[in-house]
C-alpha cells in the first residue's frame, strides 16, 4: 500500500527535517529576551568531524555574537533548542561577498564537542564524503521527482521574562523546480518531470 500525495509530502518532510537546523540570534531589549532568525543549515559530518553545512554569509553574521542558538526537530515533531558558544567553534568558509549571486557563499561550522555529542544522540548527520561519491552516479529516478527547499521558520517573542525565550517554530518545505525540470504530474501541484 502506497501513500497519498499529502502523506508523501508529510512523510518526506519529516525525514528531511531530521537533518535541518535553524540558527537563532539572541538579544535583550526593554521587553526582555528575544531571538530572531539567522539562517538555516544541515547537520553534516566529514569522518569524525561534526558540524553544520550552511551559507558563508550566515556564518559571517553569527561570528559577531558570543552565543547563538540552534533549533532542531526532535522525535514526534518536537523542537529542541541548544545554545552554541561561538568561541568554541571553528569554520571553513568560501565567501566572496562582492560576487553576490555568483558566489562562492558556502561554509562549514564545526560544532563544539558538547553540541555535537548532544545532537549525535538524537539526530543523523549527512556524510559529505558519501554525498559526493553518490553525486557522480545516476539518480534513482522513478516516476516522479519532487524538489524541495528546506528551511526552519519561526516568529520571535519579546514579552517573556529575562532569561526565558519561548519561540514558536515551524518547519517549511518549499516545493520548486530546477532548470531542467518542468511542472507536471498528479494534481499538477508540486511534482516535476524531466524535460
Amino acid at each position, binding site marked *: 500500500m*502506497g*501513500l497519498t500525495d499529502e502523506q*508523501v509530502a508529510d512523510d518526506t518532510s519529516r525525514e528531511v527535517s531530521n537533518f535541518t537546523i535553524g540558527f537563532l540570534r539572541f538579544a535583550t531589549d526593554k521587553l526582555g529576551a528575544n531571538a530572531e532568525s539567522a539562517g538555516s543549515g544541515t547537520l553534516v559530518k566529514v569522518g569524525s568531524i561534526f558540524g553544520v553545512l*550552511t*551559507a558563508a554569509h550566515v556564518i559571517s553574521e553569527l561570528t559577531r555574537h558570543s552565543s547563538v542558538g540552534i533549533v532542531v526537530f526532535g522525535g514526534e515533531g518536537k523542537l529542541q533548542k541548544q545554545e552554541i558558544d561561538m568561541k568554541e567553534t571553528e569554520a571553513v568558509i568560501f565567501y566572496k561577498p562582492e*560576487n553576490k549571486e555568483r558566489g562562492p557563499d558556502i561554509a562549514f561550522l564545526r560544532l563544539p564537542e558538547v553540541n555535537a555529542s548532544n545532537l549525535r544522540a538524537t539526530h543523523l548527520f549527512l556524510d559529505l564524503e558519501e554525498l559526493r561519491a553518490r553525486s557522480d552516479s545516476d539518480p534513482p529516478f522513478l516516476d516522479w521527482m519532487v*524538489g524541495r527547499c*528546506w528551511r526552519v521558520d519561526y516568529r520571535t517573542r519579546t514579552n517573556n521574562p529575562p532569561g526565558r525565550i519561548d519561540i514558536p517554530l515551524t518547519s517549511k518545505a518549499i516545493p520548486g523546480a530546477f532548470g531542467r525540470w518542468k511542472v507536471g504530474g498528479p494534481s499538477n501541484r508540486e511534482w516535476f518531470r524531466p524535460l
Partner: protein
Amino acid sequence: MGHRTENGFDLFDFAPNVPRPPSTYGGVSGGAIWHLYIEQLGENDYAVRGKRFIGVPFYELYDDKNALYLVCHGPQSYGQLSDAILSKWAS
C-alpha cells in the same frame, strides 16, 4: 538556468512553486535542497523510494517574470568544502 560553474564552484537555480510567494525567502539561506524520488503505485498512490541532498541556497533573485528564485551551490561545491575540512582537521 541550469547547472553552471562560477569562480570554480558549481551553481544551479531553484524556482519555488508556491501559490502565494513571499516577498522574500530570507531565512532559507544555508538551508537545503533535496530531490525526493517518488514511485507512482496508483492514480493517487505513491511511495517515496529515495531522497538526496543536492545543494545549499544562498541568494535570491528575480527572474524575467518578476518571480523570485534561489541561487544554490551544488555537489561539487560541498565536495570542495569537504576537501578543505579534511585538509584543516584530519590528522
